[in-house]
């Protein structure tokens, strides 16, 4: 790890301003940043520690929705009774991520800034080419070991998978990111790699995530996060789905449906085609399975990750059907 100076922010404004200086970065839970610094990827001159700031870890819930402070830890949000009760997919996405220790450290704001697990991105000394790290240097993953790489949202410049769980649930339910006074949909906060995979988030120097806001809906109240992986726990998703379901009074017709995919795309992936195909339709297993195939429309594999194209629709279908079974 390169050496750096360490500052404790005294206020959110001071933190934003200091972090805007060249070479400076915000430090919250550190579970991504310290890891990446050890990998030689993050090379800050100054770290601005914001974990001691007061008031940024609040969880406020009313009938309109939930506002979760950027410094609330993953574990506190996951275990929050009202999050569990009224936003189950959020809680489930959180407790199935990482480990209990990491969830105690990692903050919600930091979680949104989590970076890819692409092994080529993470090993600069062995793999010089990475457009995410060094724009224009190429992509080592294409043509390499791709079992964990994205099949959706890829570009010729980058196929790195977005590994997070929480943001997948957030995009399903139209959550927004608070950057101080600026609000932006989580779906828009994450950027496709395109020709600029180094630019991952719609956040500008001098901005800091202060909260996320999840609007209430019938769909989020009846929601789940289904995560499939090789190992039962402490692993990133092979494919995951955040699903929320609202039925008409008949208990069979789909009024509202939210679907987002994790583990398969370069960003948290909203699957509106699946939603649109099923809204207004009867909740029937065959129809759900057929519509779920739309989740991977346009998917492109790179060999070893082909299974994700098969797997993702099955995860979506299972999650929708599971929600249909809950009364």
């Amino acid at each position: 790890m390169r050496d750096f100076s360490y500052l404790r922010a005294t206020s959110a404004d001071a933190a934003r301003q200091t972090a805007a200086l060249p070479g400076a970065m915000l430090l919250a839970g550190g579970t991504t940043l310290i890891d990446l610094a050890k990998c030689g990827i993050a090379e800050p001159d100054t770290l601005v520690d914001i974990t001691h700031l007061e008031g940024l870890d609040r969880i406020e819930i009313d009938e309109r929705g939930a506002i979760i402070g950027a410094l609330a830890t993953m574990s506190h949000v996951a275990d929050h009774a009202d999050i569990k009760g009224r936003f189950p997919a959020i809680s489930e996405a959180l407790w199935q991520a990482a480990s209990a220790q990491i969830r105690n450290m990692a903050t919600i704001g930091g979680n949104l800034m989590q970076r890819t697990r692409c092994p080529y991105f993470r090993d600069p000394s062995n793999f010089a080419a990475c457009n995410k790290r060094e724009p224009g240097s190429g992509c080592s993953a294409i043509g390499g070991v791709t079992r964990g790489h994205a099949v959706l949202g890829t570009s010729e410049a980058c196929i790195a998978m977005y590994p997070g769980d929480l943001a997948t649930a957030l995009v399903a339910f139209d959550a927004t990111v608070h950057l101080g006074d600026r609000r932006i949909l989580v779906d828009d906060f994450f950027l496709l790699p395109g020709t600029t995979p180094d630019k991952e988030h719609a956040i500008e120097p001098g901005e800091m995530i202060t909260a996320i806001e999840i609007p209430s809906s019938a769909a989020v109240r009846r929601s789940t996060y289904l995560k499939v992986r090789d190992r039962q726990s402490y692993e990133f998703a092979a494919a995951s789905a955040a699903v929320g379901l609202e039925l008409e009074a008949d208990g069979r017709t789909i009024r509202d449906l939210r679907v987002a995919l994790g583990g398969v795309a370069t960003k948290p992936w909203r699957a509106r085609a699946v939603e649109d195909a099923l809204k207004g339709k009867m909740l029937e297993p065959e129809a759900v399975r057929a519509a779920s195939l739309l989740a991977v429309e346009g998917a492109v594999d790179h060999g070893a990750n082909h299974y994700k194209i098969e797997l993702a629709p099955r995860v979506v279908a299972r999650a929708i059907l599971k929600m249909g079974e809950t009364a």
Partner: protein
Amino acid sequence: MTVHDIRVGESKRGDASDGGADAVGGRLSRVDGPAKITGAAKYAVEQQLEGLAYAVLVESTIASGKVRAIDSKAAEAAPGVLKVLTPDTIISLKTASDWFGTPPPDRPYCPLARDITFSGQHVAAVVAETFEQAVAAAAMVKVSYDETPSIVDLSDGKAGDGIPVDAMTKEWGDAQAAFASAPVRICAAYNTPREYQAPMEPHGLIARWEGDHLTVWEPSQWLDGMARTYAEWFAVPFENVRLVSPYVGGGFGSKALALSHGAVAASAAKMLGRPVRLVMTRAQTFTGYGGRAATRQTVTIGADHDGLIQSIVHRGVNETSIDGMWVEPLGSVTSIMYATPNFSSRQNVVRVNSVVPGAMRAPGENPSAFGIESAIDELAYEVGIDPLEIRLRNYAEQDPHAKKAWSTRQLREAFAAGAERFGWARRTPEPRSMRDGNYLIGWGVAAGTYPVRRAYGEAVVRILADGSVEVESSSIDMGQGTYTILAQTAAETVGVSADDVVVKLGDSRFARAGVSGGSRLAGVMTGAVYKAASSALDQLIGLAIGDPRSPFHALQANTLVVANGRITAPRGDGPDVSIADLLKSVGRDRIEATGDTMPANSTAEDRYKNYTTIAMALPHTEGDYSRHSWCAHFVEVRVDEDFGTVRVSRVVSALDSGRLYNPKLAESQWKGGIIMGIGQALLEEGIVDRRHGRIVNNNLADYLVPTNADIPDIEVISVGIPDLHSSVLGGKGVGELAIVGMAPAIANAVFHATGKRIRDLPITLEKLI
């Protein structure tokens, strides 16, 4: 040296079986446990030394070629840097002998490479005042290369068929002809990938020179073997090298030999005149030494319609490195598990650009069992016979290869006990016939075996003035329970409580010990301690009877009884004296005895060879018997039909390790082997980037080992009986046995669940959806 001085309540000490918890065979809790659960146990690299400097390795980023230049200027100028070692600046060492003790070629040895034969080879090292400074400076070392094409792995077109290993050939009858004429024929190929030991404690060491004396604190499965290598590298007498390894944070075969990183650290310490600590990063542990070699086998079985085997033809290949030789004996289980009149097994090794593979829990037997135990399952379905029944029909009543009687083989008993407990009789034979919602349920069985590796051992036992007993050996405890079973052995033999025994291990100044590998340590060391303790006891009783100052002197007894630390006459008449009081009365402050199991006429040279090489290990088929441990695994899997994910939901294993010195600890080791087998079956695989010849999942987030959530309750049943042909006290091997057969048991269960036969490990979801 380790003294466990934390006392725990009686209820925590363990419960009795034969002879009480303290005796051999008792369920005594780990005597080193209190030190481990309080954080007091200091592992090798945790010594606090004055003036300690920190070394960090720089590794090659190509798999084949030459180092053109190393630019270390920036690193040398970095804060705190004391030295940058490169092939040009490191001191020259001598080549050491191999583990057979083969005299080495007379040429220098450089642990930093100019000629690169694998990605991750050590090319330089940076030593600095602090760990952080060394890490930062190591990243500044710039190495340029002239790269040449590499051979990635066994499937590389350039790899070829490899080199035949004639010593692996086992043949009897006419296997090809018998196969050709057999009415039922099975032929399939089975592959296992590179797998890694991944002990939780990374490899590393602290090296310190005082004149021409070297002390190395290093986690080690073999202090005397490693001391020999260090001594030969640095051309100092063997006695000048002291290895210290009080606790070992897991080895699984990977910590038995002195490796190049050790040579780098000891060189740095010598060059700087300061103690140096070098610990591999987790990533470096995937390339700094070898894991299990990738293997390929074809197994053909010819049988009749009743499932009786008429012929087995087996061909195996394992990878080795460009300039090293590793043979993973793939025919080891194939040749002994089932009775067959005709047999042929041959093996090649193929050179690839990898670090030389090494020993990992049951090398040979493990992949071998994956082949034969999968193949016989395939035969069972082919002829329509229950997989358990077909194993019993082909039961080998004697060693089919050595043509000798088994010393003991409780495998039939293992099948019976395991099947009964598992409920095997309730299994429906058809694949895909058991289901629970989205889950397909499968039940599988497979057998495992591991040879009893025997060697000679040595130990010192002292009876001290306070009546306590001290055991010393340079053998080690990496979790098998050596501290505990040797305390039990000494306690029972001398006649004291295990609480009054202090076992000192892990220092090469103590009585010598051979390698702790191949599941041999417990049998060897309990035998040696039993001998030394018996000798100490004889001395004690001799003093009590013969010394005129002894209260027993007037008794004119032939012998005396020592129990619970007290000495009495056999008939109960006469004095009742504590050991401490007896020693005091005869004016002795200690009794000391060295015991070994070496042949009586052994020379000093024999002893050196015995403890520092494996050349004197006794063949498991020596004499009239063939000696092995045996086991039968019964496994239930749940396969998500849509997702292809496999979870092991139930395991019942019945195992024959002979007599258990401490069932509580043996059960733990068995379960550990079973769990590593679950990882092998479902998760573990070193994945190579074919363009770079480099393992890309070189970390614990991507090289998946099982988590707690992956492991169900596991039931183990001991079916062993004492086997005095195998060891002094009747035990056979424990540590490696239980992993053998687990992967095929799971693969067989997956077939039963899904109808899909997976012959390439690991069984990941994309192979099933």
